[in-house]
């Protein structure tokens, strides 16, 4: 502001009537004052202040200069303010404001600056009064709108500086709506100040609400970096307080460093571009505001660029919050992302260990292994060297959990070898032993545990190693050694963790050695000493067996009866053994009641039909055969409509046997009656059972069988019903030529019962259908699945025969022959399948032009497999044909004659054909 505008004239500074004051060394008062003024006008405030001060100091006592000194107080104040000499400026400002001659526009400025001076001098309350007054009078200074908003912000800043954060927060919250209306720029600054105040005032929930509210309009926050940094701090506070969702709400709203930098740099460029437009349009006030924003953003950016670990701090806290919630997957994902982009450091190393542990918590073993590998690669020889043993050990654990025991063993060995002094060395050695036992390399496992006990005496896992060495003996079947060793364990570890296990295993060893008297005593002692132990029920079963073996039937039964129903397998075993004991004692009524109780209490058991069998048996033993059958019918009637009880199908098997061949008509009659009743009462599963059983009971291919099977197919629901029944229905559809329906039913069987043994029938059935419908690729694919999913199926031969058939149909004779050769090499192959395989091999050889070789195969069939009349007859005929084709008509005739001569084949079509060929050859008379 120029002196002219301020109304201060240099010429009037010195009173004319008074004699001129004596000059200071070198310059007069007027010169000094003139120089000071010139410096001020030239904005050289340093010089101006110095000159003004010299003037005052030099001529303070000269009365004729007093007026001038008074007049220049404004200039002096302004110069000092420009130089930020607030303390020195304050008295001059006050004096200027008190002077009624001070021009109004100067008063306006000074009123604002007064507040700043007070603020700088820590006179916060006084400063607030000054700012408050300045703002109060804002309507009188409409051109200083932005300064009025500045006053509001500074008012709040005084509270902040004085530590009155709650007051600052309340004030800013109150003023925020006004600021948003009147000055978006001031509101943006107030946003950061408010968040800071809330944070420092401990009003974290209010701070969170504010953050969430602001994130709906985050683009309006000019100083985004500051706001985000405060948000990060807020998240940290919530994390420390265990308020994880709130921490997450803050932390996952904080951008990555690069994104913040990019965003703010773009903002800065945008502000600079807009400044250019505003300058071109001459909008100076807006230029001022924009320039303020630009400066603040630039300053913030400059400071933030130097913050290198912002991302790490953020991600680690976010991961911690998720860990606090038990959300290990989320924690792992956050950590994994962080580690991919960060430079190696100790922080990264520590975080990687956490990452591996998180992956292991959620069972993602491959990810845990991968993280460990990445650690080794990036950090193993640098910042992560100290944690390398732990990481390697965790990798081994992950591999072991994933079932990759061979790899796990190598890793554990490597850990022990490379880091023998590490805290995890002993653990790695121990885990080698565990893995060896898992690999059924029991001797190596035993040796390793022994070595561990010797090399690492006193190790915390010594207890475990001692015990598992004994278990190794037990797994290896060396029960004497196992018992001896576990006895030593019990002596060596009176408080050992495995005492109950060792006691049980010792008794088990005795039982395995058939020393029942001793095992009975030890099992009884174990049960008394360790009630509720995990092995209790198994011990009771063994004890029951042992007591029975020593003739203590009643005690044995009591032991079986004490097994808890929750131990399903042992419980059922025990129940049936009680029944067996009762049978041995010929206590048939009790036995009957015993097994009836099982059927009533456990109808869904797989052994339900077996129990019914025994109930019936008791009746038979008492000479009441019909009553035996009646029990089956009663059980079927009570349980037969429950789809989940697959055991009902087994009841029909038992029933059919009870009726025998002679009783078959009566059986069929009862089935028909059952089916009618079930249909009438709306019991579809019971009717299904009845119809299915009826289809089995009538002669194969008979109209009644077909009718019953058809009705069963209508009733069967593959999702619910016994897969055996589903498979039979599908077979029935296949036999009737309803291929698409059969295929669908087979597919449903596999879909709803992926572990059912009958899925082998599903694959074979579908493969047959595919072959018949001219889809050989599909057939082969299904046969491949059959081999993969059901390698122990009893129908393996069927599958291979079908495969050879499909290959043969495609002209792949060699491949077909290979399949048949593979089948023939199976020593467990049935004779019927062998005969079939030989016959088909012969056909394939013939198709390949190897007629002579084929004749040998045909001969083998009819020489070695006489009971398979059909194949035998066909083999004779085909051999004859081939010999004839080879020009050996005499040999061919001999073969035909032999066929005709086989009495057991009389009447077969092949025999008739053989006669005809002999007639053609003129050899008919010899037949």
């Amino acid at each position, binding site marked *: 502001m120029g002196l002219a505008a301020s109304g201060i004239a240099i010429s009037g500074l010195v009173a004319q009537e008074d004699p001129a004051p004596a000059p200071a060394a070198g310059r007069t008062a007027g010169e000094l004052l003139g120089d000071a003024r010139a410096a001020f006008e030239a904005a050289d405030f340093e010089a101006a202040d110095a000159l003004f001060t010299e003037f005052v100091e030099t001529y303070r006592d000269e009365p004729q200069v007093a007026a001038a000194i008074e007049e220049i107080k404004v200039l002096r104040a302004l110069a000092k303010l420009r130089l930020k000499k607030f303390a020195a400026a304050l008295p001059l400002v006050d004096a200027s404001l008190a002077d009624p001659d001070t021009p109004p526009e100067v008063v306006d400025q000074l009123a604002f600056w007064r507040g700043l001076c007070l603020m700088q001098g820590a006179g916060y309350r006084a400063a607030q009064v000054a700012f408050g007054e300045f703002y109060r009078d804002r309507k009188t200074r409409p051109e200083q709108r932005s300064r009025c908003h500045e006053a509001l912000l500074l008012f709040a800043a005084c509270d902040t500086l004085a530590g009155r954060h709650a007051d600052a927060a309340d004030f800013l919250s109150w003023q925020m709506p006004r600021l948003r209306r009147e000055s*978006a*720029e001031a*509101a*943006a600054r107030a946003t950061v100040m408010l968040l800071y105040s809330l944070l420092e005032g401990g009003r974290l929930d209010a701070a969170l609400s504010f953050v969430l509210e602001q*994130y*709906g*309009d*985050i*683009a*309006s*926050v*000019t100083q985004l970096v500051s706001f985000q940094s405060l948000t990060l701090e807020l998240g940290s506070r919530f994390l420390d307080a265990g308020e994880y*969702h709130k921490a*997450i*709400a803050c*932390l*996952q*709203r904080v*951008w990555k460093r690069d*994104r913040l930098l990019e965003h703010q740099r773009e*903002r800065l460029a*945008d*502000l600079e*571009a*807009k400044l*250019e*437009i*505003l300058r*071109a*349009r*001459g*909008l100076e006030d*807006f230029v001022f*505001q*924009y320039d303020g*924003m630009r400066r603040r953003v630039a300053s913030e950016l400059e400071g933030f660029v130097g913050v290198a670990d912002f991302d790490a701090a953020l991600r680690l806290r*976010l991961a911690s919050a998720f860990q606090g*919630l038990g*959300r290990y*997957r*989320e924690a792992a*994902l*956050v950590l994994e*992302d962080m580690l991919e982009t960060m430079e190696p450091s100790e922080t990264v190393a520590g975080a990687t260990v956490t990452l591996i542990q998180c992956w292991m918590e959620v069972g*993602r073993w491959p990810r845990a292994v991968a993280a460990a590998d990445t650690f080794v690669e990036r950090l193993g020889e640098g910042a992560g060297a100290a944690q390398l043993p732990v990481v390697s050990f965790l990798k081994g654990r992950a591999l072991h959990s994933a079932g990759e025991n061979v790899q796990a063993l190598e890793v554990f060995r490597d850990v022990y070898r490379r880091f023998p002094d590490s805290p995890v060395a002993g653990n790695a050695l121990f885990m080698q032993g565990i893995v060896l036992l898992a690999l059924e390399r029991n001797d190596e496992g035993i040796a390793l545990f022994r070595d561990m006990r010797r090399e690492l005496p006193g190790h915390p896992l010594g207890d475990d190693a001692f015990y598992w060495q004994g278990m190794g003996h037990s797994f290896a079947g060396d029960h004497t050694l196992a018992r001896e060793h576990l006895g030593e364990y019990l002596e060596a570890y009176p408080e050992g963790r495995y005492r109950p296990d060792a006691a049980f295993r010792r008794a088990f060893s005795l039982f395995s050695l058939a020393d029942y008297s001793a095992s009975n005593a030890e099992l009884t002692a174990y049960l008394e000493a360790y009630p509720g132990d995990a092995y209790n029920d198994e011990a009771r079963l063994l004890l029951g067996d042992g007591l029975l073996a020593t003739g203590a039937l009643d005690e044995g039964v009591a032991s079986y009866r004490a097994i808890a129903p929750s131990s399903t397998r042992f419980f059922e075993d025990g129940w049936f053994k009680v029944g067996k004991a009762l049978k041995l004692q010929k206590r048939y009524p009790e036995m009957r009641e015993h097994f009836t109780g099982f059927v009533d209490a456990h109808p869904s058991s797989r052994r339900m039909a077996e129990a019914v069998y025994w109930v019936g048996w008791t009746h038979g033993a008492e000479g009441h055969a019909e009553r035996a059958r009646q029990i089956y019918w009663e059980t079927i009637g009570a349980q037969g409509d*429950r*789809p*989940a009880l697959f055991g009902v199908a087994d009841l029909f098997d038992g029933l059919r046997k009870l009726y025998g061949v002679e009783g078959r008509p009566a059986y069929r009659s009862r089935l028909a009656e059952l089916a009618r009743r079930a249909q009438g009462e709306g019991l579809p599963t019971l009717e299904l059972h009845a119809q299915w059983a009826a289809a089995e009971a009538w002669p194969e291919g008979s109209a009644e069988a077909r009718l019953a099977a058809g009705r069963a197919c209508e009733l069967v629901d593959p*999702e619910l019903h016994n897969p055996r029944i589903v498979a039979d229905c599908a077979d029935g559809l296949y036999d009737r030529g309803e291929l698409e329906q059969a295929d669908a039913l087979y597919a449903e069987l596999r*879909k*709803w*019962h*992926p*572990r059912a043994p009958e899925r082998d029938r599903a694959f074979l059935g579908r493969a047959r259908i595919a072959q018949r419908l001219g889809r050989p690729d599909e057939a082969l694919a299904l046969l491949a*699945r059959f081999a*993969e*999913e059901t390698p122990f199926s009893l129908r393996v031969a069927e599958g291979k025969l079908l495969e050879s058939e499909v290959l043969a149909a495609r002209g792949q004779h060699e491949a077909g022959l290979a399949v048949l050769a593979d089948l023939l090499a199976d020593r467990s192959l049935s004779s019927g399948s062998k005969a079939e395989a030989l016959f088909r091999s012969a056909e394939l050889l013939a198709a390949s032009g190897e007629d002579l070789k084929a004749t040998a195969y045909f001969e083998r069939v009819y020489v070695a497999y006489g009971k398979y009349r059909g194949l035998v007859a066909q083999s004779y005929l085909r051999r004859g044909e081939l010999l004839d084709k080879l020009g050996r008509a005499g040999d061919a005739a001999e073969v035909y004659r032999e066929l005709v001569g086989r009495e057991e084949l009389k009447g077969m079509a092949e025999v008739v054909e053989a006669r005809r060929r002999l007639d053609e050859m003129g050899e008919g008379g010899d037949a």
Partner: protein
Amino acid sequence: MRSAAGALLLSAVLASPLAAQDVVRLVRGGALSGEIVEVDDAGLRLRISLAGGAGSSVRVIPAAQIKAIDFAPLPGEAELLTAGEEAPKDELTALWAKKRKHLALPNSNAGEVGLQLGEVLLNSPDPKDHANARNLYSIIEGGDWEPKRRALARRGRLNAQVRLGAAVDVIAEARQIADESDDPEILLEAKHVLAIAEYRKLDALIGENPKWRQDDLVRPEVEALYHDLLDRFLHPFLFYGTEAAAAARGLWYAGETYRLIGEGARALECYTDLEKLYPAAAEHYGIAAARRKISDQNDEDTHPKE
């Protein structure tokens, strides 16, 4: 959303007596303000008011000298832009029609108008509007001078295609975007398209194999797909938490994936996150119904029907 800077500029423009002026920024530096009377590929003609109210002159400025043009806002433009998604469709369409010819000229805001119109059209329930949105986005994608708006237009076009049911067509493009783009919004959108495709695969796989847990062949495939899907769906929530719509959507689908696989407790955790962290967005998802389904499933597991 308007930034403080943007709002300030608008108010500056509205408050300024020079508001009706176009500003032509020159390559050599500086700027001229006036009224553009004609603009084409060769350059433009600018009417400049002479000092002292002494009339005006028209100056021809060749294209090679022009760095950028800041067009003065058209009548009603500022209000329409401020209205965002609430802007009336017809008026916005008319504004776009006037502005469209300047789409390729820096610093035209024609693309911004177009994007806003696209958003309004996509929010409409009428499929014709979605088709129009797709076409509009294509124009901006191909012609806007600003790369960021072109990227936004691409994202909008993908959204429109998904809305029109052409998700399959989008997948190949989404894969390309996922590989190439740095733009977080478009990246999230593209990745979500891919994730949804995988989700449908998982749904179909489980539908075809309802007993997958017992199936040694299918179970590894289901588990691999499930883990991969959770990684994908949780990604926006974990790394782009401020993209509330994408993050909330990801959380929802993570919950649905957990529910599909039978991990009801984990699904409930995701729904809780959604309600606590994105309460406004959570209203759009049927969380209550999903909770009931989980509760029913738990009951069925405890008391299976025969």
